[in-house]
């Protein structure tokens, strides 16, 4: 670690590492990533590994559509297998009202280039032969949605960023931030102080406290979301299945991984509970009965960093030039990582991202210009 950098990124999850890599790719290499524990130890490493563009807001549909085109070639680009697979997302709707709403969402997604569609029970059964077709009326399907392996993604980005000359420091906690003028920051860490022109706050559940060090109040709430993995099985499932708050997929390693909502808003811990298991098991076996015989191997939990409108905060803070935010993903940080990395790097290196992300700016809260997203799962 040096005593000065052009850019210091706080947070060694997929966001921070993707930003670091994309900066390096643009020749902007005087960059440090500071991670308080180990890479991927926050929300990235705890996530459900799904990647989808089937959202309900134009901003997020466009962002994830572009993210999916990066994901599809990311293993080649990083020269590391991140195990992306376009397994598709299959939403199951079980009332006529939900099916009608889904039709409207599909039309909206189609108008933004995400070619999702409504499918009948028979086609859903062809896509996922294990489905209990009595448990839903229709499906909503998009074959470009998929999954990737979170820790491999972290490793791929970290190794590629290091090859480009980025410094990545683990077990390095930031405890104080100061700014003495435009693009002039002092970052106080447990490994010493760093002077820098730019600071990126990609600290996941800690983003709120990092921003508070410079007097910026990010309006986040932490919700606990639990998740489990079964023993590894032969590939049988096919797509990511979603029904209400329930979601699960089968990873390339064969484990079924997924979760459901337990209503733990404003959480202060990420302990696992037995109630989660009974709720998940009941919901999961209703749509795929054969899962009843599959052994649950491990459960854990993590935080959704919820912003008031379920959209992340991306881009600069107007009042503090050089202080960038990449957090508040509301459960979608892993899937957004590659596109956030690219756009934030363009913002920092060139002053202008290739996709307009001004709607995502922190200033929307002060102006009352909130966005709307209904499709938060889990």
């Amino acid at each position, binding site marked *: 670690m040096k005593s000065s950098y052009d850019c210091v990124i706080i947070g060694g999850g997929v966001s921070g590492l993707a930003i670091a890599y994309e900066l390096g790719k643009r020749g902007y290499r005087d960059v440090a990533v500071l991670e308080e*524990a*180990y*890479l*991927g*130890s926050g929300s990235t*490493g705890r996530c459900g590994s799904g990647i989808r563009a089937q959202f309900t807001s134009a901003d997020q549909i466009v962002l994830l559509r572009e993210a999916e085109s990066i994901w599809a070639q990311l293993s080649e680009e990083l020269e590391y297998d991140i195990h992306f697979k376009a397994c598709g997302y299959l939403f199951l709707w079980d009332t006529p009202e939900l099916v009608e709403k889904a039709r409207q969402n599909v039309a909206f997604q189609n108008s933004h280039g995400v070619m999702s569609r409504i499918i009948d029970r028979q086609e859903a059964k062809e896509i996922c032969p294990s489905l209990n077709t009595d448990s839903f009326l229709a499906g909503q399907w998009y074959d470009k949605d998929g999954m990737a392996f979170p*820790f491999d993604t972290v*490793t791929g980005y970290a190794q590629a960023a290091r090859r480009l000359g980025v410094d990545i420091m*683990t*077990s390095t906690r930031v405890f104080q931030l100061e700014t003495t003028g435009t693009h002039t920051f002092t970052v106080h860490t447990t490994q010493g102080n760093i002077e820098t022109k730019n600071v990126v706050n990609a600290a996941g559940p800690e983003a709120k406290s990092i921003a508070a060090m410079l007097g910026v109040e990010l309006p986040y709430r932490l919700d606990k979301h639990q998740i489990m993995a*079964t*023993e*590894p099985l032969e590939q049988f499932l096919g797509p990511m299945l979603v029904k209400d708050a329930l979601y699960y997929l089968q990873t390339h*390693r064969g484990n079924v991984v997924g979760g459901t909502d337990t209503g733990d808003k404003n959480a202060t811990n990420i302990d*696992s509970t037995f109630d989660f*298991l*009974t*709720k*998940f*098991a*009941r919901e*999961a*076996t209703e749509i795929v009965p054969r*899962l*009843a*015989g*599959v*052994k*649950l*191997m*491990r*459960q*854990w939990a993590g935080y959704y960093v919820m912003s008031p409108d379920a959209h992340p905060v991306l881009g600069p803070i107007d009042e503090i030039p050089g202080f960038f935010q990449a957090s508040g993903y509301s459960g979608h940080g892993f899937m957004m990582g590659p596109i956030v990395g690219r756009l934030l790097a363009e913002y920092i290196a060139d002053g202008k991202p290739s996709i307009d992300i001004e709607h995502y700016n922190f200033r929307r809260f002060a102006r009352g210009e909130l966005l709307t997203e209904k499709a938060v799962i889990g």
Partner: protein
Amino acid sequence: MSSEDEKTIVCRCEDISAQEIIDAIHKGYTDMESLKRYVKFGLGPCQGKTCILLAAQILARETGQSLGQIMTPTTRPPVDPVPLGFFAKGKEADDEK
């Protein structure tokens, strides 16, 4: 450990050899949390009951630390794998009360 060679299996669930773990340590994965997630031992049905300690011993030896200096990863519930159907039935039984 003296008879350990490149074919020695440390994690039987995931079929991971001692050599793979040593190679990862030399690549810079020198703490148990990162090492486990990079190599992916300890994630199989036995929940790491055999391999975590063996891997910790290798890490201690390769990095010149004592076993006590090496933090072992969080143990996740359940202790042994349990069929999902058991949990689903448990809920129904509760509802009938």
